[in-house]
């Protein structure tokens, strides 16, 4: 069953003096129960805006968001609040996501207080069970956030997110601020929770190695549009959109024997304020032709389940040239 269905999501922000930031421009995807969707793209590609929109921290300008079959696109904030027991978010920076003046135990109990009718004693038991679940020792429950390490704080955030057994968890760069060894522990925990609870997860990250490891399907974004949407293994083994090819080739696996087939992209992601017409990637695309600057490509199936938005795929001209292989 689809836990989340997003159709044609659009979100713009005013940038002053009449300018408009086109953060998200017509993005569609679904997440099934027990599925982890990895969302990748560079800064400014709209990853976080999509994450915040689907759990309605933002109100979309257009498009439809269906959560468990129910249209929540324009629900007023008061009606969204009870929904959040079923949809939760974990943020990148655990230091700023937690109130520094509240003890860890109370932080974990907060969603229980808001969303359940548990008695004080039941809440305490539940909080202790949650802390054990994310492998925090009981003595930490009486501490303040400043006394914990980054990895421990991120576990607190995850404990809060799973407290009400949500059906959807949006994780926005949950491991980006953590050291490698701490990150491994958090990823283990997320994989366990997914297997145990069957919650749908949306994993937003720019770390391709981590996304590859944890995702079932991947959404590749560029300037607020989906350029490729496919099972994780296919996106990594055989990316078809020119941008995905360049992105995957710039990933540096921590293995010196891996051969890199590098594609070098000129320049940087353009400003989302003045979006050019046509394909948003055309200005940096090595295989762009004049038609790409006039026509906007739509997501189309390359194979069943593997979608990409590029006009040149039909012509078989979507492969971008590689530099010589380097070690």
């Amino acid at each position, binding site marked *: 069953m689809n836990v989340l269905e997003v159709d044609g999501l659009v979100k713009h922000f005013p940038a002053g003096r009449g300018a408009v930031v086109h953060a998200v421009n017509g993005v569609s995807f679904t997440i099934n129960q027990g599925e982890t969707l990895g969302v990748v793209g560079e*800064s400014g590609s709209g990853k976080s805006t999509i994450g915040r929109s689907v759990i309605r921290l933002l109100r979309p300008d257009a498009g439809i968001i269906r959560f468990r079959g129910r249209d929540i696109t324009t629900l007023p904030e008061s009606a969204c609040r009870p929904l959040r027991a079923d949809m939760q978010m974990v943020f990148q920076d655990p230091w700023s996501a937690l109130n520094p003046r509240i003890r860890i135990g109370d932080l974990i109990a907060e969603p229980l207080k808001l969303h359940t009718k548990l008695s004080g004693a039941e809440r305490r038991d539940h909080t202790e069970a949650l802390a054990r679940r994310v492998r925090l020792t009981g003595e930490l429950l009486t501490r303040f956030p400043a006394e914990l390490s980054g990895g421990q704080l991120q576990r607190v955030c995850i404990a809060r997110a799973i407290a009400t057994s949500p059906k959807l968890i949006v994780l926005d760069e949950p491991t980006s601020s953590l050291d490698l060894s701490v990150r491994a522990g958090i990823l283990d925990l997320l994989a366990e929770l997914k297997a145990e609870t069957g919650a749908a997860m949306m994993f937003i990250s*720019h770390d391709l190695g981590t996304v590859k490891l944890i995702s079932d399907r991947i959404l590749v974004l560029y300037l607020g549009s989906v350029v490729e949407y496919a099972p994780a293994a296919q996106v990594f083994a055989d990316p078809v959109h020119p941008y995905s090819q360049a992105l995957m080739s710039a990933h540096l696996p921590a*293995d010196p024997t891996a051969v890199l087939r590098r594609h070098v992209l000129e320049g940087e992601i353009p400003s989302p304020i003045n979006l050019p017409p046509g394909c948003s990637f055309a200005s940096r695309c090595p295989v762009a032709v004049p038609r790409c600057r006039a026509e906007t490509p739509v997501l189309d199936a390359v194979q069943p389940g593997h979608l990409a938005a590029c006009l040149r795929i039909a012509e078989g001209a979507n492969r971008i040239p590689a530099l010589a292989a380097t070690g």
Partner: protein
Amino acid sequence: MSLLAVEDLHTHFISRDLDNHVRVARALNGVSFTLDSGRVLGLVGETGAGKSLTATSIMGLLRPPAKLVGGRALFEGRDLLSMEEGALNALRGRDIALVVQSPKSSLDPLTRVGDQLIRIHRAHRRGSEAAARARAIDMLGALGIPDPPRRMRAWPHELSGGMAQRVLIALALMNDPRLLIADEPTTGLDVTVQAQILDLLRDRVRRTGIGAMIITHDLGVVAHYCDEMAVMYAGAIVESGPVKAVFANPSHPYTQNLIGATPERMKLGAARTMGGTPPDLYALPAGCAYRDRCPRAGADCAVPPKDVPLGASHVARCHRLVAA
């Protein structure tokens, strides 16, 4: 002779607590390594391992409460750590360049990019301003910055992160240094931009034969852009050697855990031995600093381990290892 030979570097943070007792954090505990011309050394480790502190100690940029308490850093045979301030100033920015972290906060916000480049050149080299300006424009062009004459007039706040990082590297390279130290040169940049910057750096090393040290926590960067690597833990290098040898045969238990925690090697749900937190630098355990977290620690680990040679300049500091 090595371009840079660091020998037994010790740096402490010395402070007083509320009761006026002196507290000492032993942040660097005998860091030793060498770097040859034409090579790229990757210094890796987790937060607090002492990577950046190693760079600032070598460059003589420590500020209280950090204090250098021992060791030598020989640059082309001359000890930087015992050098007079004047002689050191002549070297820094000319023969030795440092690319610091966070490009946005490292550029002078009130000076145009071009003037910063010209200023660093004229501080160290003779010649006219026009010549320095021409060189600055060439340098920006060489670093892949489009339309260099226009960029010369840009203010730092007008630059994107990738552009600011390129300008910092241009500043470092303005005087043709023989040693380049880059502290997390691509952290926070997007991967396609990261690849461009690292290509530039490696190109520079290959073509001009300078020596470079890249400080990073990203093992992917080390795997593909460095020749040698040194792994730091609690202010000491626990393993070093050629990148391929260390990845093929990680020998120190910490290195094994670190490499095992990369997305390429880790298996979700596998038993993780990387528990615990880094040691308290104010109260380092006697002997091996890693022994509280080490799955293979024994009674002998209370004695400081020595470097064990494992072949072809690959060494690791652990009692469990047998020399090759």
